[in-house]
């Protein structure tokens, strides 16, 4: 089976536009539940405004947030599917097209020091994974930097154990305060190596809001950390309240006998992502 680069570009462009305009249904539900649960009157008012904002964005075809993010693109490529052309170029062409045609903000600079805007929001950050089969799944997750800037990583000692993880994750959320636009989703990567823990922390953000982890150890930790975070009192927009985070999502991986890496990647309330599965054609 084969797939043409142009088909990939067109799909990515559309995903960039839709992801930025339409808040996923599970996030809409999380906002509504939070509004019912929130005790702070200002907090409730903020959540109502965010629900209204999502409605306006969808009906008027406007971006949910002006920070339309750096495009993070996950590709699960079936090993029996052959890409005709350069996959990475195809993805970046799609990002450039989507950000132009969708009137999305171009927020990427060519180098962290000289900071010249690339003008088309490229390049994307691409995470490619080979999987069995002959299809291709593409996920576009635009990531704003209000929340991205507030993440953190710690290489804990194994002796710090479970409590060390709870304390570190909670401390990251506490230090972030109002900056990442709470209520947040807290992505936690546990184990692996330093760079893999950060990858897992971001990947955890793609899960349906509040859907528990597969591993029972992670599941219990998610509940415990969520309780600790929601004791902080930061609340919606940081104005004080009960709902500081919608959920904690943990993704874990085996690690080394000497290490306990833990990474935290925060997502603002506008947890945007959109997926598509592309099928190839016969060679």
């Amino acid at each position, binding site marked *: 089976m084969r797939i043409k680069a142009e088909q990939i570009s067109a799909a990515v462009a559309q995903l960039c536009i839709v992801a930025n305009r339409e808040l996923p249904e599970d996030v809409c539900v999380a906002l509504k539940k939070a509004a019912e649960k929130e*005790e*702070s009157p*200002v907090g409730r008012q*903020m959540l109502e*405004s*965010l629900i*209204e*904002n999502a409605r*306006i*964005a969808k009906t*008027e*075809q*406007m*971006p*949910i*947030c*002006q*920070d*339309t993010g750096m495009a993070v693109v996950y590709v699960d490529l079936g090993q029996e599917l052959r890409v005709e052309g350069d996959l990475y170029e195809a993805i970046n062409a799609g990002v450039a097209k989507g950000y132009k045609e969708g*009137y*999305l*903000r*171009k*927020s990427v600079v060519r180098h962290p020091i000289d*900071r010249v*805007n690339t*003008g088309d929001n490229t390049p994307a950050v691409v995470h490619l994974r080979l999987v069995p089969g002959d299809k291709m799944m593409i996920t576009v997750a635009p990531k704003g930097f*209000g929340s991205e*800037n507030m993440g953190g990583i710690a290489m804990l000692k194994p002796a710090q154990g479970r409590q060390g993880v709870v304390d570190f994750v909670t401390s990251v959320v506490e230090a972030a*305060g*109002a*900056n990442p*636009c709470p209520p947040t989703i807290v992505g936690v990567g546990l184990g692996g190596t330093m760079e893999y823990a950060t990858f897992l922390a971001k990947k955890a953000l793609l899960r349906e809001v509040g859907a528990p982890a597969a591993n029972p150890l992670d599941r219990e930790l998610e509940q415990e950390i969520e309780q600790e975070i929601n*004791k*902080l*009192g*930061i*609340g919606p*927009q*940081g*104005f*004080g*309240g*009960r709902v500081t985070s919608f959920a904690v999502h943990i993704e874990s991986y085996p690690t080394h006998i000497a290490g306990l890496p833990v990474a935290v990647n925060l997502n*603002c*309330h*506008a947890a945007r992502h959109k997926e598509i599965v592309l099928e190839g054609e016969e060679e």
Partner: protein
Amino acid sequence: MEPIRLQTPLNVEDTAKLRAGQTCLINGIIYTARDSAHKRLVQLLEKGEELPFDPRGQLIYYVGPCPAPPGKVIGSAGPTTSVRMDVYTPALLEVGVRGVIGKGDRSQQVVQALMDNKAVYFAAIGGAGALIAKSVIQAEVIAFPDLGPEAVHRLEVKDMPAVVVIDSLGQNFYNLGRKEYSKR
């Protein structure tokens, strides 16, 4: 509580009486600036040159809006994180800027500069870019167009919602709110 309507430009009396936690509706002209624009504005001040707008009594809004789609005056236009502007803010308050609008906490230096100049720090609703865009009735780039979304825009706003976070007495609504709801 009824929101307080503010009309720019603001004088010292307008901002001195605002208190942390109050909800306001901002009306009139405001100017946008974020990281790169702030750097240039402060460089102009350091060289003794004029700013691209008269800062006295004005509000600066930390925003990099989306491009305006056809038929609209502006794209989504919510606040960006303010802490990145902390190093530049005191200099702008010194030349008469009466308040700034963003999101997230500020440094002690900024709090002191707000108190010294009887100015106010407001938060707009973070992540409500589509909603806030509806308050903008006119938008025009007036300086640094090469900065793209970071250019200085002159916005005319009608009833733009904002919350007083740090008032001219140095009271901080983030701290007050967190204290009220903390269970630790």
